């Protein structure tokens, strides 16, 4: 069976400028470009914070990382960021080995990730 990755919106107590989605499956060369289009469509023109729950993502290759970097760049241009939650050991490995883990905010779980984004976005 060809790898599939499914993007599901997650309801979370966050402001309108934050998009929270969960990825389920395997993000690889065969589906990364389509996912990038889906994520960018879901972000629309206004949202500038993205929280990705990766706890159900079993695999991510360099093509997947490439599209996450493309989304990160888009949100940086909007003064936002990408926050990753729930990386399994294999995902942690590829993100750490490539050094790219430092390009993202990383949280152990979705709740912590949402807290990080809310804290970052709320004027104090």
């Amino acid at each position: 069976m060809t790898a599939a990755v499914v993007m599901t919106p997650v309801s979370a107590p966050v402001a309108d400028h934050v998009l929270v989605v969960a990825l389920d499956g395997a993000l690889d060369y065969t589906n990364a470009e389509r996912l990038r289009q889906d994520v960018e469509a879901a972000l629309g023109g206004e949202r500038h914070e993205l929280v990705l729950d990766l706890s159900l993502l079993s695999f991510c290759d360099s093509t997947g990382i490439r599209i996450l970097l493309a989304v990160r760049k888009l949100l940086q241009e909007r003064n936002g960021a990408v926050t990753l939650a729930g990386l399994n050991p294999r995902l942690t490995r590829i993100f750490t080995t490539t050094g790219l883990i430092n390009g993202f905010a990383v949280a152990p779980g979705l709740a912590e990730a949402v807290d990080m984004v809310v804290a970052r976005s709320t004027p104090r």
Partner: protein
Amino acid sequence: MVDHRRQWPITDDLAALRENIQRYAVQAGLTGPRLDDLVIAANEAAINVLEHGGGAGTLAISCDGGVVAVDVADHVGALPPGAVPGERPGGRADRGFGLWLMGELCDSVTIDQIPGQSTVRLFMRVDGGDPPAGGGAASLRGAHWA
């Protein structure tokens, strides 16, 4: 002890290819992060075949003397020996990034080139999980985000 060689065509069904590699490597005795590393590296080699190596090729895996070897061959032969970068390439959109990553993840990576076929060979020692006392075989890891 697994020592028979298995071979599969490289198609866009990378998920099935990863499962085949993982199943073989587990039977050969690889576990934990080193198992993950080999699967990630082999997947990157297969991507390179799909993206730069003419879109078709074969992946063969074998185990000999406690070393799992993955041979990833294309039908183009444009990739020369010595193409594995020692440092992470600046651009992430080229073939060099995947090759660099393979070098980081595996114990060693070589490239054989004959007319019409380049073969990337990935090697992973089954007993390499524990660093040797002298530390001489430990590879340098941990690239930094620039």
